[in-house]
């Protein structure tokens, strides 16, 4: 391997390699933060939203969808870890696309990220409002206005993010750990291991109400169990040792979520008839109530709140970094490419995305917002296998140093592509119009970028990795 070009991920070239640490993002995060960023964004999926998969196809369909989505995300984590450990820069998949496929793809990927996360953030804020309203209702106060709480949660997290990434993710780490423990405690408390169990699987489980078509349809919300885990690599520029931390944190995150998802499913279907579960707003909170223990209900209520906050927090972090990276490359107005000199955060992007999140959190229905988020995510996952195949073709294994090499190429990439196809079909079954509207949006935006916006972009400056020339060019 002596002829291999040494690769210090991200050294830009002659000029930049001498640059002192001025005006950049701060490198302070360890693997635990990466785990918290990934799991923190996603864990809310176990507290709300996943159960729509039960409604789409019945209890068993939701479990099958959960595991197939788990396979999909294992592939995502493998592919993503390899590329991210090599292309470590803020913007994650955006930067990957720029180096491997091309500017237009990068622009699209950047938008997928920003929309997937901003919409998820809006959905979380809506859930916080709903939860406060529910608690107020339980204490006998009807007609509480949820809007101040929606606005407050967005403003507070934006403020945290504005102030600095370490405090933000440490906050995330703590509340994610609490929300995750709440799920484990609920499982242990209701499981038959410790005496009397309220679980009634034998009586409550039914056959597949829609047959196998329902299993397919459930894949739509099956993604919700894990949606956003790939956000770990947005923080690449702020991780102390990206080549090690990113694959480790991401893969640990997927495993954590697969376990949490299965436990959540097991407890919930053992307590609720599937017709109710499939339409519940806060399934884990309901499950805790049904277990008959007040302290469990309080714990899961707090867990729901923390999970939504951790998720929204990670979303602001990721969306703003993707927006920032696009501004820095002039894909978007360069004004957004600024870093706060004291806090070292992409402060203008954070500020800009606040009103957008507010527009959708206060004005759009929850299922719309969630679908917009899932679709953007799905488009992003479709990009990954294409990205990986071109990455291995343009830079074969022995041409540059990779922090992590995923095994069995190209099986994971092909598996991922097939699972994405199935999920498109599932979305088509329920939300065909949105799917078309969404693709139409990306087509229009792509043409706008190619024929107008791209003129403001420096050509060679986009390629910042110290890699040799790609094969075939």
């Amino acid at each position, binding site marked *: *391997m002596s002829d*291999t070009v*040494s*690769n*210090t*991920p*991200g*050294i*830009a070239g002659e000029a*930049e*390699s001498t*640059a*002192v*640490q*001025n*005006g*950049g*993002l701060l*490198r302070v995060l360890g693997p635990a933060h990466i785990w918290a960023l990934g799991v923190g964004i996603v864990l809310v999926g176990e507290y709300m939203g996943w159960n729509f998969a039960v409604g789409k196809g019945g209890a068993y369909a939701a479990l099958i969808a959960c595991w197939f989505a788990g396979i999909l995300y294992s592939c995502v984590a493998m592919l993503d870890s390899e590329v991210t450990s090599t292309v*470590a*820069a803020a*913007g994650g998949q955006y*930067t990957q696309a720029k180096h491997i496929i091309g500017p237009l793809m990068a622009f699209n990927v950047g938008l997928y990220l920003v929309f997937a996360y901003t919409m998820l953030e809006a959905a979380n804020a809506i859930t916080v409002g709903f939860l406060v309203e529910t608690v*107020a209702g339980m*204490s*006998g*106060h009807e007609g*509480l*206005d949820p809007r*101040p*709480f929606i*606005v*407050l949660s967005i*403003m*507070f997290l*934006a*403020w945290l993010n*504005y102030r600095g990434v370490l405090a933000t993710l440490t906050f995330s780490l703590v509340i994610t750990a609490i929300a995750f423990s709440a799920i484990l405690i609920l499982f242990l408390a209701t499981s038959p291991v410790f005496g009397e169990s309220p679980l009634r699987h034998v009586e409550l489980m039914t056959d597949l109400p829609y047959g196998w078509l329902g299993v397919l349809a459930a894949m739509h919300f099956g993604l919700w169990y894990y949606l956003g885990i790939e956000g770990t690599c947005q923080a*690449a*520029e702020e991780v*102390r*040792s*990206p*080549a090690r931390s990113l694959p480790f944190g991401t893969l640990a995150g997927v495993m954590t979520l697969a376990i949490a998802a299965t436990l959540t499913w097991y407890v919930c279907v053992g307590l609720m008839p599937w017709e109710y579960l499939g339409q519940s707003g806060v399934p884990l909170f309901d499950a805790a109530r049904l277990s008959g223990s007040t302290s469990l209900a309080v714990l899961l209520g707090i867990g729901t709140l923390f999970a939504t906050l951790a998720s929204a927090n990670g979303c602001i972090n990721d969306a703003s970094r993707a927006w920032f*990276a696009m501004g*820095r*490359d002039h894909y978007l107005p*360069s004004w957004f*490419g*600024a*870093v*706060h*000199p*004291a806090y070292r955060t992409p*402060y*203008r992007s954070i*500020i800009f995305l606040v009103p957008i999140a507010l527009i959708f959190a206060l004005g759009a229905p929850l299922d719309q917002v969630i679908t917009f988020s899932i679709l953007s995510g799905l488009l992003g996952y479709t990009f990954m296998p294409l990205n990986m195949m071109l990455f291995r073709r343009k830079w074969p294994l022995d041409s540059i*140093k990779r922090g992590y090499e995923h095994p069995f190429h190209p099986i994971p990439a092909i598996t991922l592509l097939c699972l994405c196809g199935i999920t498109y079909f599932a979305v088509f079954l329920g939300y065909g119009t949105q799917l078309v509207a969404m693709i139409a949006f990306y087509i229009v935006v792509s043409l706008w970028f190619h024929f107008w916006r791209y003129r403001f972009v420096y050509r060679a400056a986009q390629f*910042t*990795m110290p890699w040799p020339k790609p094969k075939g060019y």
Partner: protein
Amino acid sequence: MLIWNLAEYVAWALSAVLGIHIVIDWLRTDSRYSEEQLTSSHEGQIEAMTEQHEL
């Protein structure tokens, strides 16, 4: 119930305080530093110093 009405106002007030704090700091930062300085970051530049790992 009074406490919930109060909570609504407190939430509005807190949101406003946080929002104003961000905006003030933003305007201060923009006026104190030059645009070149603020947008001087480069993709992955920090790796250049902290991670000189060779193959």
